């Protein structure tokens, strides 16, 4: 009885005219920024200049050399990455959540930092380690085995795969699943053990089935996440003529004349391929509510015995690989006259720092980055609570649609959304004046961080007793008065977190804005990419360190305000 009652969503009873209008306005705005670019893409992929509609662009896309290879490469990379990263991640999750591995808080913290770290500086760190000519690791190996050339080449399929593994693939799964396994009701397992079933069969018959929906969600999320990436392939792929769909879209727009039609058709192809993933994800997370159980009891931690320290070394080593190692070399690079050449006379210098820091291009980018971050934060703090509130607490008829719309952006790769925005802003005379302004970038990056922000606020609102609000209505507070004096102040700490997360997402974003950036509104992350593509590694490293400090520093701040991530029951 009690559990059933707790499940009721008690909702705002009155449907004031103004409130309905406000909800509709929010729905309209979110729908416009999320759906309209996508609709535009679909429409444009069938639009033939001067001839109405047709399949010309699709034909052009399929004719384009390397196009099918790029799609195939995307699929190959995705599948292989999941196959490798999943077992590794599950092992780490289990070690962190259910065993007596030492120092688990610190290890988890390392993973947490890695979760927020921007990819690009890490990629650069790995280039500095694994470049066939000057990569430190290759130099060491050459010395030790007296080889002619470096044996490891980061500019290869396996190099790209490695960098993916070392940046997000494993880390995302660990961060999302560890809290889930840790919070899973231990009495479920204990009941099975008491019933006379051994630990391994309990794992197979209870733990895995209960966790299955969460695992599925995380798998789907990381597939979607992978489709999101762009910068790793953009830096490492072209030197050996390797493209995935996102770098292909980018290339199609860079060549002369730009192939808008083919790029659009490719984007739509990927969108269509994602529809089943999206549906599956929605389906699972809807049914998840009924399959998992919360519990106060913590499981007795599994004693690792003599495996304790090897396990510790393994996990710490991985955490170290994912964060410190590349970052150390990134830092090193900023102080070397020419990276990797230790035998130069006087190899150390601070001239890169002084040159970059006094460069007007850098200063403009820094300003752009800060503006972008601040704008995204502001937008997040103003809009996400409203969306979350409407979805959780009102009886607005279309709230489920709003909920879906606010979730959808996480499933839309930044490159595709960016292309949609490009066509929106260039294609309509109303919006064209905005093109090249920082506002466009704020909008594009905010959309990709909307999902996390709204979800955080939603779960907090759900925990917030409904009666706190009702007490205000009964006391004579109107809807707006209650929102201002009760909801917002109580949500303030979460809102700070949401704002900081939006800041991080905006300042490290590359894929979503790569197509929208001009020399006027280019932020630091894009500047670093441009430096790297030009081969100016030392300057890129300086910018990378700054982006790293900006994002990870803010992430630490968010942690102080109690940011917690992960799938929870």
């Amino acid at each position: 009885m009690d559990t059933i009652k707790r499940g009721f969503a008690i909702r705002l009873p009155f449907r004031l005219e103004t409130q309905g209008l406000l909800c509709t306005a929010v729905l309209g705005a979110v729908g416009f920024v999320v759906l309209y670019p996508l609709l535009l893409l679909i429409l444009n992929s069938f639009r033939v200049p001067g001839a109405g509609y047709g399949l010309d662009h699709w034909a052009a896309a399929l004719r384009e050399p390397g196009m099918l290879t790029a799609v195939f490469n995307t699929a190959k990379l995705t599948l292989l990455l999941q196959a490798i990263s999943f077992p590794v991640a599950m092992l780490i999750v289990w070690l962190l959540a259910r065993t007596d591995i030492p120092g688990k808080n610190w290890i988890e913290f390392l993973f947490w930092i890695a979760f927020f770290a921007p990819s690009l500086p890490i990629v650069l760190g790995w280039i500095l380690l694994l470049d066939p000519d000057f990569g430190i690791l290759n130099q060491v190996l050459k010395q030790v085995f007296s080889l002619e050339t470096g044996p490891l080449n980061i500019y290869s399929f396996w190099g790209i795969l490695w960098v993916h593994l070392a940046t997000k693939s494993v880390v995302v799964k660990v961060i999302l699943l560890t809290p889930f396994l840790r919070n899973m009701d231990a009495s479920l397992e204990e009941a099975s053990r008491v019933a006379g079933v051994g630990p391994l069969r309990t794992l197979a018959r209870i733990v895995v089935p209960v966790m299955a929906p969460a695992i599925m969600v995380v798998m789907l999320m990381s597939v979607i996440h992978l489709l999101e990436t762009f910068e790793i392939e953009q830096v490492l792929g072209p030197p050996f003529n390797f493209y995935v769909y996102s770098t292909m879209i980018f290339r199609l727009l860079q060549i002369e004349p730009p192939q808008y039609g083919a790029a659009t058709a490719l984007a739509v192809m990927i969108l269509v391929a994602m529809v089943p993933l999206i549906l599956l994800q929605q389906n699972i997370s809807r049914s998840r509510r009924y399959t998992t159980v919360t519990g106060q009891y913590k499981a007795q931690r599994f004693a690792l015995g003599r495996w304790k320290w090897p396990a510790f070394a393994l996990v710490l080593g991985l955490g170290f690989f994912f964060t410190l190692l590349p970052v150390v070399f990134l830092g090193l690079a900023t102080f070397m006259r020419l990276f990797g050449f230790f035998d130069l006379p006087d190899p150390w210098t601070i001239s890169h720092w002084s040159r970059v820091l006094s460069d007007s291009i850098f200063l403009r980018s820094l300003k752009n980055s800060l503006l972008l971050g601040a704008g995204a934060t502001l937008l997040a703090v103003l809009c996400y609570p409203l969306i979350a509130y409407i979805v959780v607490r009102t009886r607005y008829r279309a709230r489920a649609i709003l909920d879906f719309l606010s979730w959808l952006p996480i499933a839309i790769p930044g490159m595709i959304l960016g292309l949609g925005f490009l066509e929106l802003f260039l294609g309509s005379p109303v919006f064209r004046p905005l093109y090249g302004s920082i506002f466009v970038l704020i909008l594009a990056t905010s959309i990709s961080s909307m999902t996390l922000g709204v979800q955080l606020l939603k779960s907090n609102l759900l925990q917030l007793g409904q009666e706190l609000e009702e007490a205000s209505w009964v006391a004579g507070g109107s809807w707006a008065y209650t929102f201002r004096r009760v909801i917002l102040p109580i949500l303030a700490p979460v809102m700070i977190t949401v704002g900081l997360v939006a800041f991080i997402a905006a300042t490290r974003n590359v894929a979503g804005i790569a197509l929208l950036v001009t020399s006027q509104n280019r932020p630091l992350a894009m500047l670093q990419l441009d430096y790297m593509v030009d081969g100016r590694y030392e300057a890129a490293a300086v910018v990378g360190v700054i982006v790293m400090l900006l994002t990870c520093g803010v992430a630490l701040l968010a942690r102080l305000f109690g940011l917690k991530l992960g799938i929870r029951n």
Partner: protein
Amino acid sequence: MAGTILQLCQISRIFGSTRAVDRLNLEIQEGEIFTLLGPSGCGKSTTLRLITGLERPDEGEIYLRGKAVASVSQGVFIPTHKRNMGMVFQSYAIWPHLTVFENVAYPLRAHGVRGAEVKERVSKALALVNLQGFEDRPGPLLSGGQQQRVALARAMIYEPDILLLDEPFSSLDAKLRDQMRVELKQLQRRVGITVLFVTHDQVEALSLSDRIAVMESGRAVQVGSPQQLYERPEKPFIRDFLGKSVVLHGRIARVGPENQLEVVLAGKPQRTFLIHSNRNVASVSQPSAGQRVFLSIRPEDIIVGQSGGQPGAGENRNEMEGTIAALQFQGDRYECHVQVGEDRVVLYYPRPSPYRVGQTIRFYLPATALSVWTQ
């Protein structure tokens, strides 16, 4: 003469296929403590939420001082914040980000009261609930009883037309609960406010209320004073919900003058019972000889020992005996379960008890305390 302050006409609230409140009619008088009493899930909270406007009715009308605040047929629905009611929530809903002062001042500020008046009225309200000196305490740093008083002060500060309380004492310990109950009643008498109280605790309802409505499946099955409900329940449900009762199987042997009944008990000891006065014939409208009935009595009305000397007794009428099946020590008395034929009789015996389990005990059921029910 106090008039009707709140009137519910044929109010229904339907969730999916359950009628949480089902064509409910209630009338609450100015200045009384009116209690909604009923088992869990019978629709008490939903009724309160309908009255405050936290829920919209699916059918029916609600009038506050004769003015419709919700009416499906007229399409009227006054939103919660314009109804001028006070409410104490089960969880108290003390806003954690505000101090005691600000919590209590909130309704005033929401109604646009400003300046010195706020201060003055808040200190008056806090004095009323004995919480002077707690003004600057943050809400979460209060004990349960204190939170409850803050909630009470907050609910009453804007001088609401009616004060609603949804199981306000359920999260307090037994002792504090007794104390708060007394305080609430005194406070209500002092201020004279109308109180609508919700509980599933019968002791609370009986001791606090002027009138009680017993609810079952979204309907009010009987409305009346605590004494009326306890002594003359109209339905077996109410009889069993309010206090304990002993139920015996029987058959009417003879209908005497003035509705005097003679009932023969089923089972071994074929004894005739005499029942006086028609008011105890609760659900038997037309008693006739041979009709199967239940006899019911409150355990505390059963007198242990012989009937000799009791008024209306004579020729061992209404006496029974049985074997003691269980004996429970309850501190101030013994509860004694006696097997009589197929029926179990519960009665109380003062301590110290000379009886043991397995012994035979004689007792007497006063005719005025017995009631007859159809089977």
